[in-house]
């Protein structure tokens, strides 16, 4: 379960961007947050992922307070694919991308690699593991980052504007795969969803409706 409880946030020296947001995401639930540009979607997802910490209120991921839980512990519960996935790539090859840092979060490289390859092929990315990820198209990079996240077996996966780089068909089938495997999913986008989520929320000026 992810629970945001009256979360407030502003960037240093800036205006308040997230205003008292409360929401909950259950395992295997698909939550869709729709909102216009600059409404705070990216900020909210990063708060749910523990990348940013609430200034007021709190975010609990499987009961863990994001302000008090170190990233390598949180990583076993929640993972996020950024709006610009290229900024998340760390490996010189897809192989490195798959296993980067996994021993730190207490996972076995071999099984992570196996799961990574399985997801990648399921998503239709067929490049050899020796390929530098920067050489892939943006949509493929998004799928690579997603596969790397899933290979680490979090319970919740957050997707920020996944239409960027992916066509609606591909995205719909990716979401179907994730749903069928029981992941809790949160998608933030400025577009109307092409599939039916369990919860369809609207974010305007940092407030949920």
């Amino acid at each position, binding site marked *: 379960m992810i629970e945001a409880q009256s979360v407030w946030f502003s960037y240093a020296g800036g205006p308040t961007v997230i205003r008292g947001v409360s929401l909950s995401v259950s395992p295997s639930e698909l939550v869709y947050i729709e909102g*216009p*540009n*600059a409404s705070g979607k990216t900020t909210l997802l990063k708060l749910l992922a523990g990348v940013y910490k609430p200034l007021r209120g709190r975010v609990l991921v499987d009961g863990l307070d994001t302000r008090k839980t170190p990233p390598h512990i949180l990583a076993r519960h929640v993972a996020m694919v950024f709006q610009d996935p290229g900024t998340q790539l760390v490996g010189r090859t897809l192989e490195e991308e798959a296993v980067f840092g996994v021993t730190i979060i207490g996972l076995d490289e071999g099984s992570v690699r196996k799961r990574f390859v399985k997801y990648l092929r399921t998503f239709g990315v067929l490049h050899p593991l020796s390929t530098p990820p920067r050489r892939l198209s*943006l949509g493929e990079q998004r799928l690579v980052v997603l596969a790397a996240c899933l290979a680490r077996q979090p319970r919740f996966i957050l997707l920020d*504007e996944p239409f960027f780089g992916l*066509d609606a068909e591909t995205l719909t089938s990716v979401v179907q795969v994730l749903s069928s495997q029981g992941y809790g999913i949160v998608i933030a986008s400025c577009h109307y969803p092409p599939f039916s989520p369990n919860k369809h929320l609207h974010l305007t000026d940092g407030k949920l409706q």
Partner: protein
Amino acid sequence: MSELAILAHHLTVQYPESPHPVFQNLSLEVSLGEFVVLHGPTGCGKTTLLYCIAGIIPKIVPARIEGTLQVLGNDVRSFPPSSSPIAFIPQRIDAALPLTSTTANLCLLSGASLSEVDQILKQLGLGASAALEVWKLSRGKQTLVALAAALLRKPRLLLIDEAFSNLDLQSGRLALQLIEQARRQNTLTVLAVEHWFPKQLTNMISRTLDFRSLVRS
């Protein structure tokens, strides 16, 4: 001088170190003044095609090109980089926008005057963001800034590598109105690669093309 802005014929492109071409025998004709939206599956070579048309391949990104490619009646390689008639909005604008204020960005990227910059920012509803560092803007607003920078350069050909998937309906409409205005002022041809384009706004473009139909042999 032909009335085509882009003529590609039997175009084949292969990156070094890659065992096979990205695409083979691609043909594309875009007339002067058209606004064409191109879509196609992930990884099929849309960005690569834009790189070729912009001259980024092979000038900056090495790759082997075979076949004919004429842009605005010339071989792309003949355009001097400093006064190129082509503006290109890349997919990864986060890497292309200088880390300064929005206004400074537009001046730096386009050479436009402060009053021109001021006007376009107001038109795009970005007046309040003028003094803000551009990396502090949301991704959608950054996309509008990149579009403004491109149009301020008064290009004859505008190449867009995905803008609309990051724009809400209102911003998408503003973007299209601005492009429309530029097309009325002087002949501007637009080729936009998009995975997502608002159905409500298709009346503002000339036609859509499926990438796969360009490479049918």
